[in-house]
């Protein structure tokens, strides 16, 4: 089956800054495609090019059969976006915003009323539907933004950081609504810097950093691809000198060691149950008392670390 989205050397430059660098991606119809990366990685710029809000500097993208540089109007008939920052005028009310959105997307007046009411009720905004957005919290504004895409139900739905500023109960509700949207036939592009969100929702994940695509696959395959299928997190009583980290790396079956905090190490290894006694023995020998040890499966965070050498928090700071 032909991909529903295809980018071909998609590039966007702002002056000397290369925000998106020759991106080649294919997104299959009906999947939830996670687009993962720290803030400033180029996720939103890519999405704005897909929805034809900005033009690529080089390359192009195909939305369905339409080239975004040649047939932007047709491309927009297939795609809709809930933005990272809610795009709302402070004088508007949720009802006005959503009713207009439904209208401009071509819904009949009956269907419009039905869907707007449904979305407002589902997102807990029904009682506030005629209140000015001016007095809304960040989370409430975000819910209005998300409601747009749930009402539109486009063939391709882009959700950019859909649960930023939303509480944990709200997050689960929105995740379920995104899954339901996919089940109804939409292809979802989920841009996020929340690794857990990408992991639980996505069928496939693309990791982007500094405008470049690092890797793209199913979350499980990505996690399995890391050398050292097990992860041990060791918290020590005191700061770990780099010399100790290097000595630790020399232990057989340890693939990599990363200092996530001055007193916390993440150890990537094979056959953890066999190596663990040697690790504890090592710390005793070098007089580094261990506070706690935790074994876990690799996460997408580990995948990100594997490909960039940085945690997503560190990448965000740079």
């Amino acid at each position, binding site marked *: 089956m032909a991909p529903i989205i295809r980018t071909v050397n998609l590039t966007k430059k702002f002056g000397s800054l290369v925000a998106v660098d020759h991106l080649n991606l294919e997104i299959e119809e009906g999947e939830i495609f996670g687009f993962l990366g720290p803030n400033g990685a180029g996720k939103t710029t890519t999405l704005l090019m897909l929805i034809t809000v900005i033009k690529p500097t080089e390359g192009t993208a195909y939305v369905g059969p339409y080239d975004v540089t040649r047939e932007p109007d047709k491309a927009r008939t297939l795609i809709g976006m809930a*933005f990272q920052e809610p795009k709302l005028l402070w004088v508007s009310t949720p009802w006005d915003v959503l009713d207009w959105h439904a209208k*401009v997307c071509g819904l009949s007046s009956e269907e419009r009323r039905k869907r707007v009411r449904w979305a407002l009720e589902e997102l807990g905004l029904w009682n506030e539907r005629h209140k000015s957005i001016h007095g809304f919290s960040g989370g409430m504004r975000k819910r209005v933004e998300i409601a747009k895409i749930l009402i539109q139900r486009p063939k391709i739905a882009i959700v950019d950081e859909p649960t930023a500023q939303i509480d944990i109960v709200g997050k689960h509700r929105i995740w379920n609504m995104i899954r339901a949207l996919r089940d109804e036939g939409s292809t979802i592009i989920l841009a996020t810097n929340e690794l857990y969100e990408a992991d639980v929702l996505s069928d496939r994940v693309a990791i982007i950093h500094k405008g470049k695509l690092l890797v793209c696959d199913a979350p499980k395959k990505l996690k399995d691809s890391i050398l050292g299928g097990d992860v041990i997190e060791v918290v020590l009583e005191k700061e770990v000198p780099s010399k100790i980290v290097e000595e630790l790396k020399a232990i057989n079956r340890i693939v990599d060691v990363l200092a996530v905090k001055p007193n916390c190490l993440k150890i990537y290894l094979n056959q953890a149950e066999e190596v663990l006694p040697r690790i504890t023995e090592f710390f005793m020998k070098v007089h580094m008392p261990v506070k706690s040890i935790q074994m876990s499966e690799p996460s997408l965070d580990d995948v990100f670390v594997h490909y960039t050498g940085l945690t997503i928090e560190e990448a965000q700071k740079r």
Partner: protein
Amino acid sequence: MISLRNVWIVAERDMRTFLRYKVLLIMRAIWFLAQIALFGLVVNKMLRPDVQDAVGGNYFHFYVAGIVITLLYSTAVFIGYDIFEEADHGVIEYLLSVPISRKELVLGRSIGGGLRSFIYVSPMMLFALYLIGISNPLQLLVAFASLFLFTFGVAGFSITLAVSIKSSDKFDILLGVVDALIVRLSTTLYPIAYMPDYYAALAKFNPLTFAADIFRWGAGIESALITSPWTAVLGIVLFFSMFTFLGIILHEKRIEGGGWQ
């Protein structure tokens, strides 16, 4: 191909947004009434008979018609502020992402900006006509049609300025200066006969003069006209065509491909 339905949806949005600025709308209406009930009446009493003759016999009527035009102008210009407000809130990105063409979007904004001004000022226009009186309904219809085009022209003019200037502060200052000049160098508030020649020369080509003239003609204050009503109609049509066209071209050019960023 342009879908009129989409153009109307965009225009309707601008009209609804305008209605949300309740304080502004109430203040403008109070300003209008104060100008008539205070300034207009007092100045009317101060004027010599020869001045009254120069404006068709009643300065108060002349002034009421003029103040309607200034109100029409100042409310139609407001669409430019909306464009900046939307750029500040990122709403422009949203508008560019919806499934309508750029042409439909910019045309709708131009129409919405003009139409909302005309609708808002209509009750005040009718109140002004109640004060002045109506002598020829057919002339009045021609005047209304011309003023309708005038508001689109002003909205296009405001959009042209808004998309040519990147800073909202600069736009605000420029519009203040333009407002001061365009209103004062017109016959909205005083007759051309009392203007120095070099002011009068400019006032003759001012779209606000055309609009004030045509409204006065429609209301039957014919002796106050500086030219033939049909010249005024032609002036308004030219103003409308130029700025609606220019506003659309520049707006479309600016927003396409992220030029608004």
